[in-house]
């Protein structure tokens, strides 16, 4: 890839989401990218933990993903869902024990041989700026082995980005902000 061009303007700094977003940002059905009755619907769930392994009860998560065919939606209507349109984006606050749950579909590969993943953004009280990461589906081992990001990581850290498929088809993905199992968080070109 060519070198990313320099930014013309300096980005505004981020700040923590703080403790009081709960009445403002989460919205009805924010966690339901599809209805539970949707064919092929799955639950994506897990727990957000701090450096002591203690669940964080005041974190908010957003996911953004392709549909089951690998198409990227550009449909409006995420905030007031009609129950039919797939917008690809969801938001949820964790519960009192740091657990989150989305109802969604397995994203398809967005290109030939690409490893499908869901993009995740983490916000929390105590976290001064948002964190980005990827939730890879575990199945396509060949694509995972060839994935440029995963290949650039040491073996022991790679697994923090790959979700676990549970017996009922659900995906489990825990997020550790710190500690021995610390999730790999990402920076992008031009992120400043």
């Amino acid at each position: 890839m060519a070198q990313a061009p320099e930014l013309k303007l300096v980005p505004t700094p981020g700040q923590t989401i703080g403790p009081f977003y709960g009445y403002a940002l989460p919205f009805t059905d924010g966690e339901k990218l599809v209805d539970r009755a949707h064919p092929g619907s799955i639950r994506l769930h897990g727990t957000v933990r701090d450096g002591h392994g203690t669940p964080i009860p005041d974190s908010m998560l957003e996911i953004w993903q392709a549909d089951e065919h690998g198409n990227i939606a550009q449909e409006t209507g995420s905030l007031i869902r009609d129950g039919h349109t797939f917008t690809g984006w969801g938001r949820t606050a964790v519960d009192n024990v740091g657990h989150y749950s989305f109802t969604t579909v397995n994203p398809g590969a967005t290109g030939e041989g690409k490893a499908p993943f869901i993009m995740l953004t983490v916000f929390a009280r105590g976290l001064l700026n948002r964190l980005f990461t990827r939730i890879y589906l575990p199945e396509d081992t060949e694509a995972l082995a060839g994935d440029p990001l995963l290949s650039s990581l040491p073996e022991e850290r790679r697994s923090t980005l790959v979700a676990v498929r549970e017996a009922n088809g659900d995906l489990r993905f825990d997020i550790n902000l710190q500690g021995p199992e610390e999730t790999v968080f990402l920076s992008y070109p031009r992120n400043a």
Partner: protein
Amino acid sequence: MSTEETPESFENSHVLDPAATADSQETVSKEIEDIHASYREAVADGAAEETQPRIDFAPYRSSLLRHPTKSLHHADPETIELWSPAFGERDVHVLESDLTIQHNGEPIGERIVVQGRVLDGDGRPVSGQLIEIWQANAAGRYVHKRDQHPAPIDPNFTGVGRAITGPNGEYRFTTIKPAPYPWKNHHNAWRPAHIHFSLFGTDFTQRMITQMYFPGDPLFSLDPIYQAITDQKARDRLVATYDHSVTSHEWATGYNWDIVLTGSNRTWMETEEEH
């Protein structure tokens, strides 16, 4: 707003946060000063200027166990990361940008207009995107159940607004000036008055949440969240400007605040592909 669904206990509220300490403001201010001094030294020695807050910033006690200790890993953005969800009139009603008309009566406090533009790092307006705000009322109290600050709730003020940016990235909210409020980071800790902003760009990698402050707030130097941005020029970017041309006769005072997101990667990568 889905605030009524789950009964909440106060067991794990911020009020009882184990990270809350009895440290004095002097102790916390000294820690901030020391970090800033070594930052300025590093810059004088040629280090790059910082534009974002440190995520590892001990004076903000809650950050201690909630920041990654390993450096962020570089990723070349792919497909989904180069796009953002789409929002529009279906998502946000035009009246949601006026926080003073959400109830039957007028909220108490100083009516203000906050307006500005959302741009990306290349100076391009971010149009048709979602912008969300939330804030305390004129007494420094949030509607949120976990806020136990004994200041009055205003039945005519929720403190939540949304808008979709215009064709030039412009936004405009009418609201009430929030007050500072106490928190438990250390003894006698007070947050400067602020409005929380949530923003989307054209790429999801530009997603950000931040806080807008008001000019001349005497609490700036004491606040470990604001001071987690070690660079004065960067801190200044979070402070709105009073603008008398936004102020309207016998109605509301006005503030301007432009927001710059990080750079889009989609645009230049697509251009590369075309050539």
